């Protein structure tokens, strides 16, 4: 359980030194992408179309923020993570195609993503679900927004962050998955729980 402060772009070497249960704070650039942005990014990749940002070494944040447009530009009001498993069908290809190093979300991801993380060098960092004000506090500014036609929650919000976290590393590049470990231990207790509840 070591705490790290990382700055983007993050190298593969740094990522490969992280282990499950480590705590990470990010400074630099992160961008939001939910279901529809993942789908479009992969469509563009297939069509050899360049993305509006270069995601290599950056962090993807599974988040549909509340943002407000002011005289001076966009302002983040609240920006907590959304459930990551919805992106499980895209994430392995996303990691391979774009070289992102940290996937940030809540609830964990499955074995396909974990396998891609092991192969290409990436980690999953769990941000506390619902802690949207805590997240917004460390977002210094919105650098840009792309794909706003997808709607506020689904657009690509590119953000400058300072000490964004704490992120609990819950899938590391060795293939360890904290959520799977918890599931296994819950499963072991199921029979005893039934028994105590008189089932």
């Amino acid at each position, binding site marked *: 359980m070591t705490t790290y402060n990382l700055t983007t772009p993050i190298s593969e070497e740094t990522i490969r030194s992280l282990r499950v249960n480590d705590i990470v704070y990010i400074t630099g650039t992160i961008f939001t992408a939910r279901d529809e942005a993942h789908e479009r990014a992969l469509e563009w990749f297939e069509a050899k179309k360049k993305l509006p940002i270069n995601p290599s070494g950056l962090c993807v944040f599974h988040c549909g*923020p*509340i943002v407000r447009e002011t005289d001076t530009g966009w302002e983040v009001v609240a920006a*907590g993570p959304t459930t990551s*498993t919805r992106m499980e069908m895209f994430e392995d290809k996303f990691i391979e195609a774009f070289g992102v190093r940290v996937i940030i979300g809540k609830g964990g991801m499955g074995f396909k993503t974990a396998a891609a993380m092991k192969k290409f060098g990436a980690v999953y960092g769990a941000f506390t679900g619902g802690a949207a*004000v805590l997240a917004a506090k460390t977002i210094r500014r919105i650098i840009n927004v792309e794909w706003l036609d997808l709607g506020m929650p689904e657009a690509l919000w590119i953000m400058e962050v300072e000490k964004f976290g704490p992120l*609990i590393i819950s899938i590391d590049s060795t293939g360890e998955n904290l959520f799977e470990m918890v599931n296994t231990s819950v499963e072991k207790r199921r029979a005893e729980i039934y028994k105590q509840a008189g089932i």
Partner: protein
Amino acid sequence: MQVSFLEDTIVTLLRLAVTDLPQDVSKGLEQALEKERNKTAKSQLGSILENVSLARKQSIPMCQDTGIQIFYLNVGSKFPLIDKLPIIIKRAVQRATKEIPLRPNTVNPILHKNPGDNTGLHIPWINWKIVEGSDLEIIALPKGGGSENVCQLGMLTPGQGLKGMKQFVIDSVIASGAKPCPPTILGIGIGGGADICMKIAKEQLLKPVGQRHANPKIAELEEELLSAINRTGIGPMGLGGDTTCLDVHIDVAMRHPASFPVGLAVQCWAARRASVLITKDGRAQFITHKVD
């Protein structure tokens, strides 16, 4: 009684609901942090409590998912403007979306269009109850999507009975794992029918954390399930720990001899709710929140 007074009061009610977690819930989270033995779980509960306090101080939404807007109305039959309440509530939701702001969360399931103001077909959803007298109680329950996605209906058989109910609830909680942002609050409705048990289940989410059912047998079931769920080890955010659930509330309706319906409503730790009592001469008293 002014329409604008009611509209303003409902905007305030929504602001209180999404920015200021009721004291019973934050107290429940604080007590959980004291008892928690898992280090990661402690850090999650710590982040949650810090977030709650920041949202309260800055009066901004504690979670970016400000939910689908659901209201419970206990309307005195002598309260004026009863027929105007749906339009007043709709306008208040539209204003709250801009003023607080709330995330625009209503999507037409057929057309995939989001009108951007948190209203649309059937939404905001209003549950009506006509009561004696001339007061109006409005309860706002902004309901997030992550926890709503793991609500369940179990059409059990009478043979499965209460044992089956317990297994159904425990299995559902284990299957949903991290998804509903634990520690959760569970509402369980038993009996009635498919729609009735779900409706009762969701109404349970209006009860304060720590309140037990008046019927000791039902209270015992609540405690038994709470302790069983907290032995799963799912923990805050599914990262492991002692705190998976803050409370379980159960209520029952008579059942058909052939049926044993069980409804399970799941609420995330951001268990947002706010209520206000409005008299017919235009005085508003907030019940869940202290307002200067």
